[in-house]
């Protein structure tokens, strides 16, 4: 279980990076990206994923298909 950032929609604002409790978000060569190995969807830390909460673009951060 992990989230991913839709590359075509990310505006590289960087708001999501500091709110990630597992520090899974980094700035990639094009847009920001989430490390699927460490992303927990904030399970155990928060009720809802913090990156989704702060992201200004709708449907930019989505769950990876299992």
């Amino acid at each position, binding site marked *: 279980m992990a989230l991913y950032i839709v590359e*075509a929609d990310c505006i590289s604002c960087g708001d999501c990076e500091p709110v990630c409790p597992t520090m899974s978000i980094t700035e990639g060569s094009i847009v920001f990206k989430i490390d699927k190995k460490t992303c927990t969807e904030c399970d155990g830390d928060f009720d809802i994923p913090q990156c989704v909460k702060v992201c200004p673009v709708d449907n930019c951060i989505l769950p990876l298909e299992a």
Partner: protein
Amino acid sequence: MNSQAALSRELALRIGLAARALPDTDAKRLLSVLTACVGLPITEEKIVGINLKNLKTAVAGEFLDVDEPLLTHALSILKSDLHTHTDVQERQAYVDGDMPGSVRIACASNDGINVDGHFGSCSQFMIYQVSADEARLIDICGTDSPDGLEVDDKNVFRAELIQDCQILYIASVGGPAAAKIVKLGIHPMKLPGIESIADIIDRLQTVIAGTPPPWLAKVMGIDATDRFRFEREATG
């Protein structure tokens, strides 16, 4: 008398914007200098009379170490309503499809030259169609609501005026208004200070000519397969 109570809304906004154009200056600091220059109440008529020298020497040289071009710029913002340049600019013809690989931008402006407007109060939106090597002023969109028409939500009304634009440049915008802009599919860009529309177009053209970020490529209608090309180069 309270100095702020005597200010017109428009003038108060211009003082705020002018203060932002100056380093380490908030509206309060600029207001105290202006008060020293012309006395209370501050009015449009008195502002016109202020020159660079007044501004520099007021309050024992409060602004003495500020660069002159910045002060001149701040002064022009303060006086902007009285020097409207809009008539000078001519609209250019544009038909959809004229400029492939272009993007339509709206600039919130009061003087028609700079992006100096607050979204909710600017007098006009300057609409440009911009491609890598061309920029056309295709419309100047006034923001007065038509006579007799009751507008429910001023910000929605304004956003709908520029609904066919992909990007909106503003000097300032409130949070709820920004959300309404985004909802209509327009990408708001709040600038850190006042900038000329020409500079913004210049910068945007550099971006379009280079590798536009994916979200921009998307709104410009560049095909996802073409986008992939430079994504791969960038990651490579």
